């Protein structure tokens, strides 16, 4: 098991205690392409934060690649995030004053990788995303799809155990959304990268092989979706 969650509970204490995750049990295998679906307020964002080691949980156990992720210091958490997790965000989250290549390099910079090697790797990943000629461009000179591909290159460059994508198509038009989902699919199929997509869009979830529904802080139905037939509504096209 790459990811194993056992009875994860999380309560927010902002004035009134809010029990957001009420005992989540979940396992995800290496090489899976999974989506976590739920309405807003269902706890899917909280779950994503915990999976991404961005937030702590109150009780239970979370193992990532055999490592217990619990009560980490900030420094350790940063280290694990850097080495094990690649993030793809809805709003791309590129740093505006850095070029595409510099954005892609950044995770390696925090690993202390030498500059030359960093630059070579960044170019390699940008070319893989078809963005070689855009390496020296700044994010505001690129389209949404290009920006998201830069972000994907940045997520991949540290060869993480999992890619966490938070509404990766949320800020994109439908055509670009399809391209990005196809790219993720391809990465999963061809390179065997484990990808978890968090979304509230049925069409996006339908592109993944397994859909985990979360509702009111507990895991609901888990749909096998190898045939991509789970969603009968508008497809991502």
């Amino acid at each position, binding site marked *: 098991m790459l990811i194993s969650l056992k009875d994860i509970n999380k309560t927010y204490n902002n004035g009134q205690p809010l029990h957001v995750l009420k005992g989540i049990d979940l396992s995800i295998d290496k090489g899976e392409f999974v989506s976590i679906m739920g309405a807003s307020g269902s706890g899917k964002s909280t779950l994503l934060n915990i999976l991404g080691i*961005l937030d702590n949980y109150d009780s239970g156990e979370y193992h990532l690649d055999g490592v217990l992720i619990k009560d980490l210091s900030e420094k350790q958490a940063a280290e694990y995030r850097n080495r094990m997790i690649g993030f793809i965000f809805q709003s791309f989250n590129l*740093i505006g004053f850095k070029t595409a290549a510099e954005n892609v390099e950044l995770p390696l910079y925090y690993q202390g990788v030498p*500059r030359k090697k960093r630059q070579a790797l960044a170019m390699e990943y940008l070319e893989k995303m078809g963005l070689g000629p855009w390496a020296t461009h700044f994010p505001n000179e690129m389209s949404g799809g290009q920006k998201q591909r830069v972000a994907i290159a940045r997520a991949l460059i540290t060869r993480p155990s999992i890619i966490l994508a938070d509404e990766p198509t949320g800020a994109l038009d439908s055509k670009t959304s399809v391209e990005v989902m196809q790219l993720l699919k391809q990465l999963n199929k061809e390179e065997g990268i484990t990808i978890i997509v968090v979304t509230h869009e049925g069409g996006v979830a339908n592109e993944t092989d397994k859909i985990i529904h979360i509702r009111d802080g507990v895991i609901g139905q888990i749909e096998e979706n190898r045939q991509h037939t789970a969603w009968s509504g508008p497809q991502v096209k």
Partner: protein
Amino acid sequence: MLADIIQEIGSTLRNNKLRTALTGFAVSWGIFLLICLLGAGNGLMNSFMGNMNEYVSQSVTVEGWYTSMPYAGYRSNRRIHLDEKDVAYTRGRDWAGIIDNVTPSTDGKSVVLSKGVLTVDGYMTGVTPAYQEQEKIKMAAGRFINANDLAEKRKVMVLSLSQARELSPEDPEALVGEWVSAASVAFRVIGLYHTDEGNWYRPVTIPYTTYKGIYDASDRVESINFQVHGPKTLAEFKEFEDTYRSAIKRMHDIAPQDDRGLWIMNGYTQNMQMSQAQNILRIALWILGILTLVSGIVGVSNIMLISVKERTHEFGIRKAIGAKPGHVLSLIIAESITITAAFGYVGMLLGMVACEVMGKTIGARSVDLGFQQIRMLENPTVGLDVALEATLLLIVAGTLAGLIPAMKAAKVRPIEALRAE
């Protein structure tokens, strides 16, 4: 690493041009004032020291004064007069190799020198040839009093060039060899000495023996001046001085614990006091400069705080992709140091230019106080050491200014990255 930091700093500054300029100005101004203050302080000290240099630091002058306690049957408040025995003792074998150039001086006598219808005031003193060395007298014409003058009690005198000008306005040097009368006694002028800026008082000198013969038949000596060799440290010097003092005290029946009866003045202690005063001035100037700089530092701290607030999202992203708190902390502190140091150096450079200008204008001007010429500021510049100290100060200041903003930035939670902008 360095390139990254420079790049990031560049972007911060571009985003906040006006704020950066205003803040930078405050830092530049602080350092500018600090450098100007230190430069002016150095100039003042240099001009003091320049005037002091005329005196030999190891020269000691002994004079009698009033006792403050009764002793050996004598009443208190007795005037002590040094005499020939003291001179002989000082020259004696007890101090061979330690004291030399012993120069007794008579007390002075106000006289009016006249040459024809021209007159000039003067203060006549009887001296020995060693006086020239002692007081660093530079001859402008003729020679100084020599041993033969003393032995033969010649009626010769050496005056200052400025006095000579009064008596012989067209050609002062022509006065050498001429006779000048002083209080109805005629003296032949044998030499003229330079009255340079540093020395505000130079007497009319005649041979010691001549003075004694004409004006003072007693064996009293007004003061004894001599050079000391041997003591290297202040402690050694004090030891020498105490021994010498007790010997003279015994000869005049002054109570051993009475410090008032004898007055011993030495360049050693004076030099020490001088450098102490210099240090105090320096410290005061540094404190003033640093206080001015504080407003600049607060400004930098302010701009960094605002910048950190604006970049919360960015720090969230950085932390999400693996930046440790230390990474963010050092980034902000490095930015702060860069702003402080860059603008600080501009201020330092301008300050040094201002010091040069100060040296060329005020420094070049000397003020004539009648009896002496003084230069207000002598070479009012700061040295490499001050530049290095100021650099260090800037780095410390930059670190302090960046500390609070950096700690705020390091505390940004990575979840911030997930919030939409």
